[in-house]
Every structure is written in structure tokens, then in C-alpha cells.
């Protein structure tokens, strides 16, 4: 059961949530690429999109913003 409400800035896609969850765990771009079986450039592309959507200046800020929005599991 989830009680998540829509917020401004656009929801993350499920792929973006997967990427950000791995970022939050301190996994490197190459490690994320291996885990999700995509190229490191695709990972960088996803991270740039995540920072944009969450209006975050850093990876750490993006993680906290996504946790606040109920988009990541703690």
C-alpha cells in the first residue's frame, strides 16, 4: 500500500529510481552500468535527468529530495 502524492518537477521513471537507489548506496557509475546492463554513458544521462527533475545540485541532494518525495525506499 502506498500513499504517494504527485509533486511538481516530474516523477522519476522506474529506471531513474533504480539508478538513484544505486547512487544512494554509493555504487560507482560503472557499477551501476554493470548492475543494470547499460553503458556508463547511459548512467550519466540518467543521473543528469534525475538532477534536473529534482532540481538538485548534487547527487547527495538528489537522494534526499527523492527520499522526501517517497520515490526511494530507505
Amino acid at each position, binding site marked *: 500500500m502506498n500513499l504517494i502524492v504527485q509533486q511538481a518537477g516530474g516523477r522519476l521513471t522506474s529506471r531513474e529510481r533504480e539508478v538513484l537507489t544505486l547512487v544512494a548506496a*554509493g555504487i*560507482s557509475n560503472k557499477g551501476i552500468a554493470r548492475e543494470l546492463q547499460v553503458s556508463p554513458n547511459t*548512467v550519466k544521462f540518467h543521473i543528469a535527468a534525475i538532477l534536473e527533475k529534482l532540481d538538485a545540485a548534487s*547527487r*547527495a541532494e538528489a537522494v534526499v529530495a527523492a527520499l522526501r518525495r517517497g*520515490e526511494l*525506499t530507505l
Partner: protein
Amino acid sequence: MNTTTVLQQWSRERSALAAALAPRTVAIALGRHRSLSGMRWRGPLAVTAAEALAGSDEVLVISDRGEQRAPVVACDLATDVAVLRLDAGQPLSPAPAEEEPALAAGAGVVIVGRSQRGPLVGFGAVRAAGPAWRSRRGGAIAQRLEFEAALDGRFEGALVADLAGAVKAMLVPGPRGSLLGIPAATIDRVVAAVEQHGYLPRPYLGVRLQPLWLDDTTRARWQRSTPSVAAVAGVAPDSPAQAAGLAAGDLLEAIDGVAVDDVESLVAQIGASAPGRRLALRVRRGGEPQTLEVTLAEWRPAQRQGGR
């Protein structure tokens, strides 16, 4: 005349202090023209600023003993501490000791980093010092430290020492151009976990959260000091949260008797707890307080719960 002026003495002592600390520093090359700083911590492990590594899993490290490629063995975005493993066989460096006194506002500090070309030195002062705090990055930091100094980006990850030469913190950029210090105690918590496990184990609770904004009447009735409270928006299957009986709609008020002010403070408190730790969660369900016991699991990629 063979007298030494006070200024000459001052100048010599400054450069001697910097020279004594420089062997502890390393430079980390980020591309051809950019670098950041780091410091040897204990044994083969060195630390630097996590955010600046931008997801690298290996970096080029330059120190007074030459160049080497070093793996990034841990990257803790919440505290901004990344741990690098330098070549085995290098002389062991003792960890900076937890020496008193703690830095106080106004105290002088020396900040020593390194670029590809050699040591970088800056002198400054403690602009603000305070008790333990939670950073905007969601990290539990042992002491709030802000510095006043004229430095550039190459100093990110540099060591900050008091004027007796005791290493007190790592320099990291803060909001609005401020210079923050990650205290030695917080760095050591991350390094010690890496020494014990070979990597940094992550705690996993298994909840999704949302801030819930309370009206003044409810706030007063529940005796909350902050306007928002962390509400459980979802519980992951087979998670510690589910095992403990947490449910969507529960409001998290305290962990082990420490008040949870909002979502960020919950993130910091959980993030600073090791997997396997047993916690008493005080929640409010249907307006009534109750306490649930939960044992944190270790986060695994399989638990990434990306899609829904």
C-alpha cells in the same frame, strides 16, 4: 644584525606546520586540468570528498611518493566521505588522533591539500562551531564546523588541522559558497566500517516516506517542535519495516528516544546506524503513540525496489 623579528618567526612556524602535514596529503586528478585533495587516513586507506568523484570507481592519485591508480572502496554521499585504497606496502600512517580540544569558533586552522604539482596551503579560522548536526545531504555529522579562508576548488577534500598540527577535519564545500568541515570522528566512523568489512555496509529499513505538514493545533497536542513529521508512505515486502509491523500512515516520531524532526533527520539517523542494529521506533498510529522494535538489515542491490 642577527635578530629574528616576530614576523619572521611567525612565517617560519607557518611553513614548518604546513611542511609537517603535507606528506599526509594526496591529489586526485579529475581529468587533465582539475584536481581535488585528499589525505591518508590509516594504513592503506585515504579519504577525499565523495561528491566530487562523480561516480568514479578508480582514480589517479598523486602524492609525494609518486602516482598510482587507486580504487574507490566506499563513497558515502551523506557525509561526503569517500575512501580510497592506496597500494599496500606503503608505510602505514597512523589515524589522526582524537585530540582535545575540539575546534572552537575563532580558532586558527591550517588547511593543507595537494594539486598534481605539489602541496597547497591555506590558513584560516573557524567561523562557526557547534554540536552534532544533520547536513542537507542527509548525513549525521559529529560536529558542525564552518571555516573562513580563501581557497579554490583544488582544496576540496583537504585536511584541516589546528595550529598544533592535529588533524581535525576534511574540507568540503557547503551551500552558498561556504566551507564546511567533516570532523575526524565522522570520517573515522566510515573508515572503520570499511576496515572491518572491506566495503561500507548500508542499512536497510524498507520504508518509503513523505513529510506530513501538521496544523498548529495537532502540533501542540502532539508536542512536536517541527512543522512536519515523517509519514510512512509504503512498506517494502520482506523488509525489516514489514517484520516490525510498520504500516503506511504511521508517523515516525523518535528512534531510540531521539526525536525524529522530519524526513531528512530520519534519513540521517538511519544512515548513521550499522546493519544489524536494533532500534526502538516510536510511531503514532491513528493518533496514538506506540513503540515497535526493528532490526536493520543490510542493503543489497536486489532490494533496490526501483519499480512499482
